[in-house]
C-alpha cells in the first residue's frame, strides 16, 4: 500500500486500458457501506485492480492527505474538508459533487419516545447526541437547529457521525442527528425520522483525484465509475440523493 505500486500504463496486465494496480481511496465515514460495494464492483469490472479504502472523518482524512498520506482519490462528506486539500494544492483538477446527503433524527427502533420533529428533542430529560461542529455532520446539525430556532443542549458532541449513531444503538442517548444514509445502514437498530428543516443543510459530497496519485488513470476511472449510473444506483439505494 505504501508506494511502489505505480502501474506502467503500458503494462500488459492492465489489458491496454491503463486501468489496473492498486488504488487507495480516502472516503468519508458515511460512505463506508456504499463505497465498499462500489469498490468490489469496480474490481470486478476491471481485472487486476485492487481498491483499498480508508474510511474516517472527512476533516481527519483531509489533514492526513495534506500531511502526505498516500492516497489516489479523496471523497469528502462536505466541501470544507475538500477545500483544505485543494487550497493546499494537492488536487488534480476540480472536485465534482457526486451525491448529496440530508440529516434525519435517529431514534431507537420503533421510536419509543414518539419523536416526530426537532422540537421533541428539547423535552426535559431527553438525551441527544450531535456531531462536533468541527466535522461535517456537526456543522449541518448546527445549521438545521439554527434554521429551526431550536435551542438544543446535547449530552455529547461526537467525533463522527458513526460514533453519534452508535450511542443511539447502545441506548445511551434517545436520539442523534445523523445522515439519512447512516440511519438506513443501521435500520436493524434505529429508525430515521425525517424533518423538514433538514433541507436547510443538504451536504454535497465532492470527489477528487489527488495530485500525488500514483495511479492517475485508474483513479480517474474510479471517479467516473462512482458517477456512472451503476455507481449512482448503489448510492441511491444507500439513501443518498443525486447531486
Amino acid at each position, binding site marked *: 500500500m505504501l508506494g511502489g505500486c505505480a502501474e506502467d500504463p503500458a503494462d500488459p496486465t492492465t489489458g491496454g486500458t491503463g486501468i489496473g494496480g492498486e488504488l487507495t481511496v480516502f472516503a468519508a465515514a458515511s460512505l463506508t457501506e456504499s463505497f465498499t460495494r462500489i469498490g468490489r464492483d469496480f474490481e470486478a469490472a476491471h481485472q487486476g485492480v485492487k481498491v483499498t479504502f480508508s474510511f474516517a472523518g472527512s476533516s481527519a482524512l483531509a489533514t492526513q492527505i495534506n500531511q502526505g498520506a498516500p492516497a489516489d482519490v479523496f471523497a469528502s462528506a462536505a466541501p470544507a474538508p475538500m477545500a483544505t486539500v485543494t487550497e493546499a494544492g494537492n488536487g488534480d483538477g476540480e472536485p465534482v459533487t457526486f451525491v448529496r446527503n440530508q440529516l434525519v433524527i435517529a431514534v431507537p427502533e420503533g421510536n419509543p419516545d414518539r419523536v416526530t420533529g426537532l422540537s421533541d428533542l428539547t423535552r426535559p430529560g431527553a*438525551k441527544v447526541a450531535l456531531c462536533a461542529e468541527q466535522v461535517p455532520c456537526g456543522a449541518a446539525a448546527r445549521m438545521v437547529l439554527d434554521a429551526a430556532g431550536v435551542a438544543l443542549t446535547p*449530552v*455529547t458532541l461526537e467525533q463522527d457521525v458513526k460514533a453519534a449513531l452508535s450511542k443511539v444503538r*447502545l441506548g445511551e442517548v434517545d436520539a442523534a442527528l445523523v445522515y439519512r444514509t447512516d440511519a438506513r445502514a443501521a435500520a436493524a437498530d434505529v429508525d430515521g425520522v425525517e424533518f423538514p428543516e433538514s433541507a436547510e443543510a443538504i451536504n454535497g459530497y465532492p470527489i477528487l483525484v489527488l495530485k500525488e496519485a500514483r495511479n492517475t488513470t485508474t483513479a480517474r476511472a474510479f471517479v467516473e465509475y462512482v458517477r456512472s449510473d451503476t455507481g449512482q444506483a448503489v448510492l441511491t439505494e444507500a439513501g443518498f440523493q443525486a447531486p
Partner: protein
Amino acid sequence: MTRAVPTRTRRTGRIPIALLVPATLGMVFLVLPLVGLLVRTPWSTLPQRLTEPGVLTALRLSVQTASLATLLCLVLGIPLAWLLARVSFPGRRVVRALITVPLVLPPVVGGVALLLVFGRRGLVGSWLDSTFGVTVPFTTTAVVLAEAFVAMPFLIIAVEGALRGADTRYEEAAATLGAGRWTTFTHVTLPLVAPGIAAGAVLCWARALGEFGATITFAGNYPGRTQTMPLAVYLALETDLEAAIVLSLILLTVSVVILACLRDRWISSP
C-alpha cells in the same frame, strides 16, 4: 579525575557497534516525533492560543479528572496491591493477570466494556437509572471512571513491587510489640513503601491525563464536562492543525515533567 578519564574512555571504546547503532536508532525513533511537534509549533501565536478559553477549560478538566482518578486508584489500588503481595490465595496469578489487563487492552475496548456495565442499559447502569435516576455516561464521573480503569494497573504494579521488595521484619517487629494489623499497615507498611506508592501515583496520574479511547467511548465529548485535553486535540485536528499542535505540546510538556521527576525512582531503577 585524571585517572578516571582513561578508564571511561576505555569503557566507551568497548561498546560494541552492533549495540550502539540500534540503540541510537531506537532513541531517534522515540524522540524524533516529539521533535517534529516542537518544530511545527507556532511559537509566535502560542501565548494567545494557550489562553483561549477552550484550552484552559480542557486543561483544567484534565487535571481535575486525572487527580480524582488517581485518588480513586490509591483508595482501591493500594489494598489490592497489598492483597496480591502479602496474601497467598488460590487463583492469585489469575487475579493479577485480570487486573493488569487494562495495561494491554486497547482503551476503546475498555470504553465499550465500561458502557456495557455502567451505561444506561448496562449491568449496573440500568439499576442505577431505574433506582436512583442516575446515568453515568456523558458525565465527568464517567471520565474519572474511564481514566481510573486504564490507569489503576500502573499503580497496582508499582505498589505491589514495592511491597514485595520491602523488608517484612519491620512489620513482624511491630506485631511483636503489640501493634494491631491495621496499625501495622498504616504505621509501618505504608511509610515503608511510600516511595513506591508515590511513583505509582505519579505514573497513574500521567496515564490518566493522556487517556483518550475509553473516555471518548464511555464519557463522550462535551466541552467543560467531558472534553479532556486528548479529546480536544483530536477534534482540533479536524479543523485546525496548529491548535492541535499547541494542545499536544501542553500534554507533552506536562508528561515529560512528570516522568523526569520519576527518573530515578522508576525508569532507571536496576
